[in-house]
């Protein structure tokens, strides 16, 4: 696992260590760019968000508390929230996408053992919780998280009534709550 290195790099970043920050960027930006691409739908916007997000990481690194979470997790929350703010301000519509990321194959249950080794216990635990849901419910929740889809967009995409989508997500999250705590 690389996680301890990220935490150490982030803590060094908090002291103003620019080399550590660059190393942190090099190590984590491919995953975080992938998240930005899904959320923002265009490469230009994704790179804007990634850049603004990393600047925020630089400025707020001293608020990271290792005992309360892992560095990559903390950074992805900072950057995802930046992306959501941007989406809200731009009111970007799904129709404006230039990049298509339709599937969720990367989050499938058929992950190869090699890939599984690199995953933290936390994400394995989360996936185990999500696997207890009906496939459609799990798909809605993951699409909502990764792509920031609205309920209406999910309804359109999945060809289901809006009320059904809302109920799936609400009940799905309600059902996994005990599993997550």
């Amino acid at each position, binding site marked *: 696992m690389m996680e301890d290195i990220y935490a150490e790099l982030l803590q060094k970043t908090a002291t103003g260590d620019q080399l550590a*920050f660059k190393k942190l960027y090099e190590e984590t930006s491919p995953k975080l760019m992938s998240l930005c691409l899904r959320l923002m739908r265009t490469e230009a916007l994704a790179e804007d968000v990634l850049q603004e997000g990393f600047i925020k990481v*630089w400025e707020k690194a001293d608020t990271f508390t290792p005992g309360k979470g892992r560095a990559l997790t903390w950074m992805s929350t900072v950057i995802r929230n930046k992306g959501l703010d941007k989406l809200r301000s731009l009111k970007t519509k799904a129709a404006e996408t230039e990049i298509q990321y339709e599937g969720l194959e990367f989050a499938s249950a058929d992950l190869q053992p090699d890939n599984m080794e690199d995953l933290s216990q936390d994400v394995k635990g989360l996936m185990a919780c999500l696997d207890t849901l009906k496939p459609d419910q799990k798909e809605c929740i993951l699409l909502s998280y990764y792509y920031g889809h609205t309920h209406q967009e999910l309804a359109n995409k999945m060809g289901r009534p809006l009320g059904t989508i809302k109920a799936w997500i609400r009940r799905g999250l309600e059902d996994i709550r005990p599993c997550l705590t």
Partner: protein
Amino acid sequence: MSNVNNRANNSTKRYQNPELFEQLAIEYAAGSMQGRAKKRFETLMETHFYLRAVVDAYENKFATLVELLPDAKPSNQVWAGIESHIKASAPQEKKTSWWKTSFFKQGFGLAAMAIVVSAVLLLNPMTVTPTSYAAILESDSNVAMAMTKIKKSDMTLTVDIMKKVNVPDNMELTLWCHPKDGGIPMKMGTISESGKTNIKISKKEWQNMKDVGFLAISIEHINDNKIVKPSGKILLHGQLTTASLN
């Protein structure tokens, strides 16, 4: 006007129901809360710190999903932009000094400043036995929320909550002193949601203060006397330092 106030009060009451706010927090963290409901919830999070704490916990859970994503290398321009921003801001202090925080903007900081300055000027930790300790307790979003003083002269621990912390029904705030080297914290007692709470401390508790690293206020179920460490969310926390207090 009274109808508006009633609606606001009822809305706040609703969010103090643990079942409801847990569900809303997980919906927010998962990204499924939208539109006006999301804005309303974000406004409430600004003042209801337990909501922020619960959301943070769920956001941490969902954020692990980033691990599953395939890598996508950004262009070199991204780092160039970040680097130029860092260099442009380099002459300034990288980190916002604690005395520039909202704590001071709120006017709560002068007392803390006086404590820290006097601690620096008057105390030499190598040679002087401390007569007081102090801690500024912050929320997860690094907003200073409370001031804690522990004085040997009257063997009293005082917590002054500057901004009311909204606590759900059937729950209360509990103060803990965590040892520097880890281990079981000292449970100091229940804290009022706003204003000052004075707690008398024993001689043994005073002696133990020299080994305390940080203080934390957690949210616990009322009358749950058996807990020996925080079982609920930590809402506020801060380092304990020696001080010189009157």
